[in-house]
């Protein structure tokens, strides 16, 4: 499938700020699931660093504006050819040992409810393979955390989302990572895009899910929010220990003032992209 992406992120400031610096993870890397046909990241008025490929195989790029400014706009546009690999990340060049992804951050630290859920889900499943266990955990998370935008924020932790019993894709991913770690499976947070128009699912095109490391298979994506594994509707941008670590845009405003953020993401099969 060929997907087109148009992703604009615009920050506006109430008063001019002294400068802006961002680290962008906004360029998809090649794997068996995706191949970039064309891609561009543009930030008018900013100095862009050369994209570098980090140890996790993601493209990272520095963007900065030094002059006093009242706004910055990051525009990502491109076309990617995607293939359904049943969620398995194959042919992705990376150097980080999977076992490094067994550590928690404040966002993925489990609480009692999460560990109870893991015990419950894996009860009487001693013979289950790692892959089967991963599916059981993803299903349990989908069950425990209802998709409900507006109940959580960007800073909500896995434990908080679990207690609330509701959240968005970010929260599903955090809870699933916490579960996987308890089950001894390396797991990480993945940020990307989703072409959600097809099945009418109500999710935003800017999406997130979790990857769990399954011995013999490698990294496998699990989208608990949509109760599936990533397929040709997904574009993968980058990974990290949690949402902050994997954020497509991580930035800092010098001498900051009130900021207003406007994001628009359009993902569509090629040919439909003109119908904005």
């Amino acid at each position, binding site marked *: 499938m060929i997907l087109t992406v148009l992703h604009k992120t615009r920050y506006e400031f109430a008063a001019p700020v002294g400068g802006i*610096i961002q*680290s962008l993870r906004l360029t998809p890397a090649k794997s068996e699931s995706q191949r970039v046909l064309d891609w561009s990241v543009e930030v008018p008025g900013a100095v862009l*660093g050369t994209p*570098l490929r980090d140890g*996790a195989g993601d493209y990272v790029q520095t963007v900065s504006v*030094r002059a006093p400014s009242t706004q910055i706009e990051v525009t990502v546009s491109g076309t990617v050819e995607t293939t359904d690999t049943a969620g398995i990340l194959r042919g992705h060049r990376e150097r*980080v040992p999977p076992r*490094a992804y067994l550590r928690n951050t404040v966002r993925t630290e489990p609480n009692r409810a999460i560990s109870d859920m893991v015990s419950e889900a894996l009860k009487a499943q001693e013979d289950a393979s790692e892959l089967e266990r991963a599916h059981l955990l993803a299903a349990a998370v989908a069950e425990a955390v209802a998709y409900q935008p507006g109940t959580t924020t960007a800073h909500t932790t896995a434990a908080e989302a679990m207690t609330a019993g509701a959240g968005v894709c970010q929260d599903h991913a955090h809870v699933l990572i916490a579960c996987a770690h308890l089950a001894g499976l390396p797991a990480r947070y993945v940020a990307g895009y989703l072409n959600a128009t097809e099945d009418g699912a109500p999710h935003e095109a800017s999406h997130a899910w979790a990857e769990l490391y399954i011995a013999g298979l490698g990294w496998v994506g699990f989208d608990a929010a949509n109760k599936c594994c990533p397929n040709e509707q997904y574009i993968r941008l980058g990974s990290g*220990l949690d949402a902050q670590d994997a954020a497509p845009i991580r930035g*800092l405003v010098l001498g900051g003032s009130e900021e207003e953020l406007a994001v628009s993401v359009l993902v569509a099969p090629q040919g439909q992209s003109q119908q904005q």
Partner: protein
Amino acid sequence: MAEPYFNEMYDASGLRAPYRMLEGWHQNMPAEFRALKQAEAEDLFRRYGITFAVYGEGGDPDRLIPFDMFPRVFTSEEWRKLERGIKQRARALNAFLSDVYDRGEIIRAGRIPADLVYRNEAYEIAVAGFRPPLGVFSHIVGIDLVRTGADQFYVLEDNCRTPSGVSYMLENREVMMRMFPHLFQENRVAPVDGYARLLKRTLASVAPEKCDRDPKVVLLTPGHFNSAYYEHSFLADLMGIEMVEGQDLFVEGDFCYMRTTEGPQKVDVIYRRIDDAFLDPLCFRPDSALGVPGLMNVYRSGGVTICSAPGAGVADDKAIYTYVPEMVRFYLGEAPILENVPTWQCAKADDLKYVQEHIAELVIKEVHGSGGYGMLVGPKSDKATIEAFAAKLAANPSNYIAQPTLALSTCPTFVNEGIAPRHVDLRPYCLVGRDIELVPGGLTRVALTEGSLVVNSSQGGGVKDTWVIAEE
């Protein structure tokens, strides 16, 4: 009665050779003269501004670290062996770091458990797969040594991040030379004052490949609230480089610049004295105001070198320590020259059992602790302290390691009544760049309280000048 500890000045057969010149020196020193000299030393330290703020304690932040005028002496023969051992260890530690951020051969070979490395908090995912210039991760390796016999040295711990204290090594010598010049005329003491030049050369040698000029080196300090701030400004001054704070640097495009009155100046090498977590709020702790946003991207694309490399701390963890001799064998194919202190990993059930049974005989330390805090010296502790510690140990065994209580050597130290033996350790500073360098000497720390084995300056320890007698 024989002393239970090795006395570096007087052994069973009497006065040891390296101290021959010093016996008459201290015996002929009138008490009033000594008091005068001690006051003069303190005055000099104060004038140089060498003070030491102690972590976690209130009190005077401008406190002087106590200085003992009686030097600690090594023969060149003793030093040669130490030097070989230290350099060997520094090479092995760097080989290990290169390996674990690359293919992890030592783990694949089953010589060290994967989780000990990869699950370690000090293992930085952000630098996996990155090879710093010349493959060097730890450019300044501080190795803490203790001595238990004429020919018996043990490594207590390694410091691969930013070992501090080298300013004391330099200032102790400076003060001794000013106060007792004739001692240096009579003894052929190898000089240590080349350290700053060597450090600067080492740092310049690891400039990025892209750098096609005389590298611009800066020292990055967390600022004047840091307890080692004095050392930072002292070293920057000796090296003739700028001491900067995070706010003095900024990233633009593929490079890092320093803010100067003549505009931005490109920086090639950063000798950082701040922890990994604070280096770059866009990569590590987002609330860090001490670092430089965007720095890690510039680092990883070869625009600037950070010394020591982020992630170098995974080699000096107390749990990894046990495996350093294994690293020497694995990477260098050599037998380790310096020995480790036997260590029990409380994370292992068998080890924990042994430790719990012998708790009163052992020294127990936190895996990630430093500065002599959070440790138990079994034989020196009362029953209540031991019991309280045992409870902490039982609650979180993997947080602790244990070692036998070592019979640390003693060195004569000035006390009210003249001189008396006090326990000492040694921290030499090994520099790793294009070459591996070690100045003959180091920082000797001394436990000033009679019988005490804790030499940390934060716990009432003092320092001494450390001599290596040059060869005839």
